[in-house]
């Protein structure tokens, strides 16, 4: 979670930014103090162990297995033979059909991200500018949908958009006739925007809430119009939140499986469904595995580049006031 991690370095900077105070570390340390430090470090390692083990067993090992499978061979009955290692399934990805599926998935994920940003930014702005008590309550309201099973919510949307559903009834009553939106890419994007909106709202809220509003006031004092102050001050200062939100929305919507299956009627094949199909109906594990590896690598590269950029921006940016 990049937006969580982003908080930490700054917190560290804040503590480091008080060098004038009598720093205990600078004074010669007694053996007892050193011992306490060492023990604290050891406890730190100890309490991190369960989490590290968990990630190792349930994330690293499966990831390793998938990588191994991606070089294996499929037998004619669909069994995966762990021999005759080859790059065939990686070569197959260059196939026009698969490239088309990847491009379409990326396009829908991009649309979802942009729509989420447009909807979430004003909303997060509103949240962040409320008095603290109201803010806490509103945040709870944002979280409430997450207490309901996601699948149930998607089926509810399916009912809402169905040709017998309330949305269609409304459009008929208004004289627009029944509308067919269910089982189209539009329905998929609508469903994904709803599903991932919170991932955009929360990092934006964190960024806006932490922002130093005096800078906006300063801009206005210097005769910047409201819009100009927003674009030149607020947006750049919340850049980390925007980027984090976009990553958090784009990555899961690119690989989304449930929403396209249920709201898209399985008619336009997206990458998530295609990979699932390789592991199930087609029984082509090597192809499914190589696609998964490729997606993970692409996402990692994108996130890494983006983190390096934002780190640079922070270093070269306005800096500490």
């Amino acid at each position, binding site marked *: 979670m990049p937006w969580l991690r982003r908080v930490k370095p700054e917190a560290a900077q804040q503590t480091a930014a008080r060098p004038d105070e009598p720093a205990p570390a600078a004074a010669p340390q007694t053996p007892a103090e050193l011992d306490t430090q060492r023990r604290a470090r050891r406890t730190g390692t100890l309490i991190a162990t369960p989490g590290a083990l968990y990630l190792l067993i349930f994330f690293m090992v499966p990831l390793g297995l998938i990588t191994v499978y991606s070089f294996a061979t*499929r037998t*004619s*009955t*669909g*069994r995966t033979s762990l021999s005759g290692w080859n790059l065939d399934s990686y070569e197959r990805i260059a196939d026009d*059909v698969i490239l*088309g*599926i990847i491009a379409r998935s990326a396009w829908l994920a991009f649309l979802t991200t942009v729509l989420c940003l447009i909807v979430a930014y004003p909303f997060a702005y509103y949240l962040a500018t409320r008095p603290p008590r109201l803010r806490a309550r509103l945040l709870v309201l944002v979280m409430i949908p997450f207490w309901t099973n996601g699948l149930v919510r998607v089926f509810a949307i399916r009912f809402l958009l*169905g*040709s*017998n559903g309330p949305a269609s009834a409304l459009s008929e009553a208004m004289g627009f006739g029944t509308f*067919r939106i*269910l*089982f189209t890419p539009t329905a998929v994007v609508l469903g994904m925007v709803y599903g991932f909106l919170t991932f955009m709202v929360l990092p934006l809220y964190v960024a806006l809430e932490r922002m130093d509003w005096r800078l906006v006031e300063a801009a206005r004092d210097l005769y910047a119009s409201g819009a100009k102050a927003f674009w030149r001050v607020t947006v750049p200062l919340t850049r980390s939140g925007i980027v984090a939100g976009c990553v958090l929305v784009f990555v899961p919507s690119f690989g989304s499986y449930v929403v396209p299956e249920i709201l*898209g*009627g*399985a*008619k*336009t*094949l997206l990458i998530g469904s*295609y990979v699932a*199909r390789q*592991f*199930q*109906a*087609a*029984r*082509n594990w090597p192809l499914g595995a190589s696609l998964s590896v490729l997606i993970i690598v692409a996402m990692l590269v994108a996130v890494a580049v983006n983190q390096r950029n934002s780190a640079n921006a922070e270093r070269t940016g306005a800096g500490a006031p």
Partner: protein
Amino acid sequence: MSITSQTRGRLRRYRWLALAATAALLLAACGGGGSDNAADDCEPGETDGDLAFYNWADYMDEELLLAFEEETGISIDYTVYESNEQMLSQVESEAAIYDLVVPSDYMVALMIEEELLLPLNYDALPNVANLDDAWDNPPFDPEHQYHVAYQWGTTGIGMTYDALDAIGGESSWAVIFDADTAAQVPGGISMLDDAPEAVSAALKYLGYSITETIESGNEDAIREAGALLKATNDRLVKYDSVTYGDDLVNGEVDVAHGWSGGFAQAFFETDAYETHVYTIPVEGGVRWVDTMAIPHNADNVCSAHAMIDFLLDAENGAALTNYTYYGSPNEAATPYILDEILEDPGIYPPPDVYERLELIPQMGDLGLIVQDMLTEAKS
């Protein structure tokens, strides 16, 4: 009070000891017996432990499971799947051990080839005599060693009577695959999200025999069917293998490619028989049979035989069909099956219609090409 709990603790310990001893004995018996097939020693109705039963979703009357538990005293660990491939990967990876599974025809052939099934011991299955002769020695298990038929059905088209009238009163795959005919249907069309079924439907419309096409490895015919699917994609409302029956009675679609029992269940639940009908197109369709089989690594082989025999009983077999609305392979069950099912030509097609139905054979290497056809259709 403390004494009783102590005693209980000790008893519990002894019970573990007893269990361990039994397990050791069993292991010794298995090791020493040298019998290749654990099923050889099973007597009719004998059980050897709790039954892990892995079946298709919505494919079993729970009353039957309860009756079996009561009759035998063992309990059933019942889990479900939604596709043959899902079941296969579980059995193949040994992610869980099952005593009884329900593979369809082509999957039986594949599992035999992969040596994943145990030959059945017919001495423990006296009720096999109840089966209709038509189910003897099918192509997917020519010596009838590994499976016993469970339920059978067909794949065709469910539609509103209005749609049927609109295309002239005779059901044809043209209602899906021919643009002009499809245009006469007011509502939407859906197809099964299943590559072998979708390709088979297209093959039938194009006039090919499914069996011959697959067995002769006629890739051109399959590609022709794939091109037809691609041309049809934009006309469809959706692909669906789960809610096609409900979508039809709800009016989401007017024409749906699907399985006989799925439609029958949906029509029955919503009283839609007056307005909706399941048909087998004039060009012919697909028939299939789901079977009971025992995975090679089953723990409780005798319990599995007991369950198979229990379900082959005339009255139990009828209860199953009365619940699932799929055809029963059990001839002796006929008197106990509801008349509305026996008389429904969608479930029990008349002989002339039945002749136009084909089993989908095991596809081997063609399987991947068939899968690609549906993928390309959706691109």
